[in-house]
Each structure stands twice: as C-alpha cells, then as structure tokens.
C-alpha cells in the first residue's frame, strides 16, 4: 500500500518504520527536517519537508496516488484540515486523523472522518490500570 504520513513525531516515526518493515511504500511529511531524526535506521521510505496542509507539498508527496493518508501532526486543526483535503479534494480512500480533543474527535468522526483521540485512549488506559492493580 502507498501510505502518506503527516507529522514525524514519536507516533508518526514509529508507525512509518513499522509500515516500511511490513513492506508498504511510505512517505513521511514534517515541517521540521530535524523531526526525521526519530526515524529508525531501518526506515526505507521517503522523507519530505513541508506542511501537510499545503497543496503543493501534498502533490509533491504523491497524494493523488496514495491509498492511505494519516494525519499525526501536533495540531488538531491542522490534522483535520489536511485530512478533509485528502478525502474531499484528492479522493484518498483511507484517511485517519489524530485529534487530541475528544469532543472535536467525536464531531469530526460524525462528519465522516476516521478520527481517534489519544486523550480518550489515555484516560481509559490509566483508569483501567488503576483498577487492574487494585
């Protein structure tokens, strides 16, 4: 699968490396070239410096041919803007969006994006850990 990842933070870099290990064709975008240091040596995809909300960068990254777009930048709004662009303008089949704010994640999942909220997941994990330990 051709996969485009927006944001090379810990999650983006980890996912990118795992996906290339699994044999997928991966491109990672980040506005800061320094972020690519997080990629492990066994990452053999493409790195591209630029913003995932910028059409010129998205086209350069091959958004028109990509099967999957994953928005993992630090800002919720940027992730939502880029994801809606990928889906509505470029017709990407699978679009996944990280939205930290649980309410915003809920709203945009209602509006048709596949969102997940690390905040909500974190709360659940922490809560369950307390009672499993007791």
């Amino acid at each position: 699968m051709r996969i485009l990842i927006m944001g090379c933070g810990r999650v983006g870099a980890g996912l990118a490396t795992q996906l290339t290990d699994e044999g997928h064709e991966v491109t990672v975008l980040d506005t800061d070239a320094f972020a690519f240091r997080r990629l492990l040596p066994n990452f053999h995809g493409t790195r591209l410096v630029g913003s995932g909300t910028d059409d010129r960068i998205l086209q350069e990254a091959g958004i028109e041919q990509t099967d999957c777009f994953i928005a993992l930048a630090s800002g919720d709004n940027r992730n939502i803007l880029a994801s809606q662009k990928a889906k509505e303008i470029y017709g990407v089949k699978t679009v996944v969006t990280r939205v930290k704010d649980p309410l915003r994640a809920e709203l945009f999942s209602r509006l048709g994006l596949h969102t997940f909220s690390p905040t909500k997941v974190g709360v659940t994990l922490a809560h369950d850990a307390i009672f499993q330990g007791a």
Partner: protein
Amino acid sequence: MYIIVVGGGAVGHGLALELQQMPDHEVAIVELSGSRASSLRSEIGEMVVHGDGSEIAFLEGVGAGRADLLIAVTADDGANLVTCQVAKHWFNVKRTIARVNDPRNEALFLRLGVDSIVSAAGAVMAQIEATLPEHTIIPLMALEGSRLHVVDIRVQEGSPAAGRALRDLEFPPEVLVSVVIGKQGANVPSGDTVLQVGDEVIAVIPRESDAAVRKMIAGPTEGA
C-alpha cells in the same frame, strides 16, 4: 443578534471596532494569545475573551449555542475551518464566515459548508482584475454553500457575444445572465436582449465556468 468573532489579530480588531458602532448587537471577540487578549481588552473592553475558539468546551462557555453568526478570522486556515465546522455542526450557528489565508483552500471551505469566505488574496485579485483590461471577469460575491458566484463581465471588441441575442448564445450549464448594464442603464435581460460592445453583464455562474464565460462574453484576451 449575537456575533462571535474568533481571532483578535488585525482583521478581528478592525471588525471589533466596526461592530462596536452597532449597539444592537452583542459581540464576543475570542483571542488565543493571553497577552494579545489583555491588550485588546484594555482597548475594546469586556467583549474580548481569552481562549481557543476551535475548542467545543470553550465555545460552549461563551454561549455559541445562541450565536446567530460566527466569523473566524485567524491567520490559521485550519483553525478557521474547524471553528466554522464546530459552530455549524455542534452548535447549529445559522451563519458562518471564514477568512481564507491560502487561496487554494477556498473551494474546500465552501464545499465543507462554510457559508461565506473572505480571502485577502481573492479581494486584491479582484481589484487587479478590475484594472487590467484583459481580465474582464470580476468576481463580485460568492453564493452561500454552492459553487456559484456572481460576476461582472464587460463585453469587449471582438467578443463572440457582441451583436447577438442572448437566446443564440450557448452558455455552459447553470449560467444565468441576470442584469445587462448598457447605455440605457441596467435592465433585466430577456432572450431577445442583444449584447453590445461596452455593455456590462452581471451573471450568476459556476466557478468552473469562469474561463468559458469570459471567452464568450468578454472576448479574446490580449496576446492570447
């Protein structure tokens, strides 16, 4: 009317000063930066609120549920789009207006249900087009929630439409010639109306037909 303005930069500040002159309206100005918010508050007053206008919980706190209009004018297109979508789909705000900083985002904003967009680049382009003789289609206004917009086109020398009746012209679909302004003043045209060189035509057209309509009514561009 209750109006929420998100973004207290140059545009939001100017808007706040204008809206202050309209005492019948209740206005809230939302600014993300704490220091910017307090300097605005000392100038404009209590209507300035410090917070993240794209956050649902915050908007709830400023009473977005009873807002009639939300205007998002930050320098961040992501924030403007999300704020308008939250207003529309979470709080059922009747009307939303967004500033678009990157002109390439205009189509996406309209497609996703923002009622009106304000684009500095678009507005300046319209001014430039109005002064250049070869750019004879001037966008006047975007229509709410659709691909249609209102344009002004001048019939020039060499226009294929000049001297012909409207009924004989084959326009692209959804093109509606609404007003023809000639020497006799403005008229609502009929199929028999014959366009003359120098006439101005106000039409409602889909954005994607701009080039085709320009070619038909305005005629060939210089050097084209």
